[in-house]
């Protein structure tokens, strides 16, 4: 009976409405925060930061953003890559043209710019639904990538169209570019991810989230009880794009350091959608799980095949692609509600553990 709610009585509505009303959940989150903020930086190697930890944080944030749109509001989007590109290129323009601006504001403003773009491309959602909307969001994907590729202004007229983040500091500590310590870049990504995840959790359990879920579960009924469909959907597009934009800005500033428009192609959009689905639609914690799974699985398979079993890089890659695809099908068949649901089932089991019922 490790996970017990019994005995935890709430004496006020505000206690019942706290962000993590159950004691064990609070401890769980606290534990993870300690690990993330203290243990990991002490132990991880540069390889871990660069290949696993920072991309995990960046993709978690993007997944969370897309989950708000798809999982909470029920609007499928395949334009995530394009929106991340908006975040990344905004960050580049801000960082190079307004060098006195602190990197924190650079990233936040990049998110806001992405939110505006998201609203613009969310407008068709009033009339277009389901897969028609999904394919229509590809218009955003292709148009945005084309735009960044085509107009020299976005890349400060660099002949190759490639952008690089200048070294930037927070309180005298360098946090961007290859000159920065990976730990510093990790903290930058971690800070944004943790704060935004908490904000997202609050949003989805509040009135905004309820309006989103109402639209998702039954848009007609939602409108009849007074929820404005367009305004609600656009809010979802805005918030979702803000998160994705911040993720794009972090992708560029905290993780890769350089980028070109191609990096944000449609494959990235699909990958993030995978993270959402595997993690669990409509789950904040699932977004993290999904991102972890999709980031780790290929690395794990490569290490397994090449490192342990000694396959050639080619065979390993072929097997990796095949197994990745097969695992996704397997997963969707076994638990279509994703890792978050599996986690919930585990929690329910723990509630009565060690008794089977």
């Amino acid at each position, binding site marked *: 009976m490790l996970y017990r709610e019994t005995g935890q009585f709430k004496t006020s509505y505000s206690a019942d409405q706290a962000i993590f009303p159950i004691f064990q959940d609070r401890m769980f989150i606290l534990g993870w925060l300690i690990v993330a903020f203290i243990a990991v930086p002490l132990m991880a190697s540069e390889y871990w930061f660069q*290949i696993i930890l920072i991309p995990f944080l960046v993709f978690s944030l993007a997944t969370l953003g897309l989950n708000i749109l798809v999982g909470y509001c029920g609007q499928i989007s395949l334009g995530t890559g394009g929106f991340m590109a908006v975040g990344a290129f905004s960050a580049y323009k801000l960082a190079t043209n307004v060098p006195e601006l602190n990197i924190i504001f650079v990233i936040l403003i990049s998110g806001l710019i992405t939110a505006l773009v998201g609203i613009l491309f969310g407008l068709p959602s009033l009339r277009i639904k389901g897969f028609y909307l999904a394919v229509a969001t590809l218009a955003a994907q292709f148009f945005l990538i084309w735009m960044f590729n085509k107009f020299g202004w976005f890349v*400060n007229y660099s002949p190759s*169209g490639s952008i*690089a983040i200048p070294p930037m500091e927070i309180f005298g500590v360098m946090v961007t570019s290859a*000159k920065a310590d990976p730990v510093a870049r990790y903290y930058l990504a971690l800070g944004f991810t943790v704060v935004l995840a908490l904000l997202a959790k609050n949003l989805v359990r509040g009135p905004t989230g309820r309006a989103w879920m109402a639209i998702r579960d039954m848009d007609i009924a939602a409108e009849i009880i007074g929820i404005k469909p367009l305004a609600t959907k656009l809010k979802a597009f805005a918030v979702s794009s803000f998160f994705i934009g911040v993720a794009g800005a972090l992708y560029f500033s905290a993780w*890769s350091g350089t980028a070109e428009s191609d990096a944000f192609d449609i494959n990235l959009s699909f990958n993030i959608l995978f993270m959402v689905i595997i993690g669990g639609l409509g789950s904040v914690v699932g977004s993290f799980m999904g991102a972890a799974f999709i980031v*780790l699985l290929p690395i794990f398979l490569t*290490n397994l095949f090449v490192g*342990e079993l000694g396959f050639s890089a*080619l065979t390993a890659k072929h097997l990796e692609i095949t197994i990745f695809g097969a695992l996704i099908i397997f997963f969707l068949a076994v638990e279509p509600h994703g890792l978050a649901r599996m986690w919930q089932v585990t929690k329910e089991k723990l509630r009565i553990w060690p008794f089977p019922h």
Partner: protein
Amino acid sequence: MKLSKFLLGTASALALSGSLVVTDMAVAQEILVPSLVYRTGAYAPNGVPLANGIADYFALLNARDGGIGGVKIKVEECETGYKTPVGVECYEALKAKGAVAFSPFSTGITYQLIPKATQDKIPIFSMGYGRTSAADGSVFKWVFNFPTTYWSQASAVIKYFGDRAGGMDKLKGKKIVHIYHNSAYGKEANPTLEILAKKLGFNLTLLAVDHPGQEQKSTWLQVRRIKPDYIFMSGWGVMNQVAIKEAASINFPMENFLGNWWSGTESDTIPGGAGANGYTSTNFHSVGANFSALNDIKKYVYDAGNGAGKKERIGEVLYNRGIVNSVFVAEAIRVAQKKFGVKQVTGEQVRYGFENLNMDAARWKELGLGGFMGNVKVTCKDHEGGGGVVFIQKWDASGKKWDRVGSAKGYTPMRDVVRPLVEADAAAFAKENGITPRDCS
């Protein structure tokens, strides 16, 4: 639940393999040469022969000479699928194992690695691709792009067109179209071409083709309308095959259609069948297997059953390019060993090796590659190694082989035009990134 067990297994195996990366560093009685390859994905047809050439040359050195300076070379392939983030992942993994030099074979990956490698003190050798202005060694200390660059190539191409027109002055008023892959790579040649258009008075039209380039109807409709005298193409992958087919089907004269050195391989022309006959492309090295080093590969590597690919594909354009890449890396290691008197060289020492390479005709001959390509002399200032020589090759569809055409000595780039551009771009990069150019005098 079975799934949770699986996940648990996954997690523990992952932790295991993560730790392996670290332990591998200790066991190194060989020099680790990483090879970022793409044997899968949209660009695999190009990536496979490249990777085979790279692997086979080091296999030859190991089998015939016992490695370099008595140390075996370990080539470790890492599959990128031509995807930039995966390339970076490969870089980090192989860096942790002690790799001495990287050749990314992707302009996108090269751009990503330049700042990282500079920080990590590992040389990047992007042979004929990547960032052109890295030719300025005073700014890009850790990046080498000899024997020649896209900008040099573009200027040599214009020289060749001038040659065909019967003199550079005859180019005035001629119509030249540049069809390019709409990516960092494809765009590299544009500024040079624009400057030359202004200088020499030809009409230049730039036509972009988006990745992957399956469908190019509108591009070729525009070609139909412009009726260019010459077409220059910077294509990659399926774009090349489709372009050659389209050109053939609108009856564009193939000998006036010139691909750059990434747009002139067997896999570009063979699918075009007889229609591809006469198509030309640039190159900076020879094709064919008629060199003693390549014969040695057949003897020491393939006959022992250790070849990376098919024996009959030795001598293909991209295979030979892989060979060239390995020759340069091997020579840089050799120079470094001699200079520092060690067998086990570091990335920093190999950088010295690259910067002090002097590949003259005699050295090529010693290597069993006499006449394989032009001379290369790298200096602190000039990481392009003198600008190189660009050859023109023409496809013979019936014989399925490339023949050299145009000037037998090849075409040298217009250094007077290109070099100032390189230095200006490098200076801008230095300024934006707070780099003080080092003193090369």
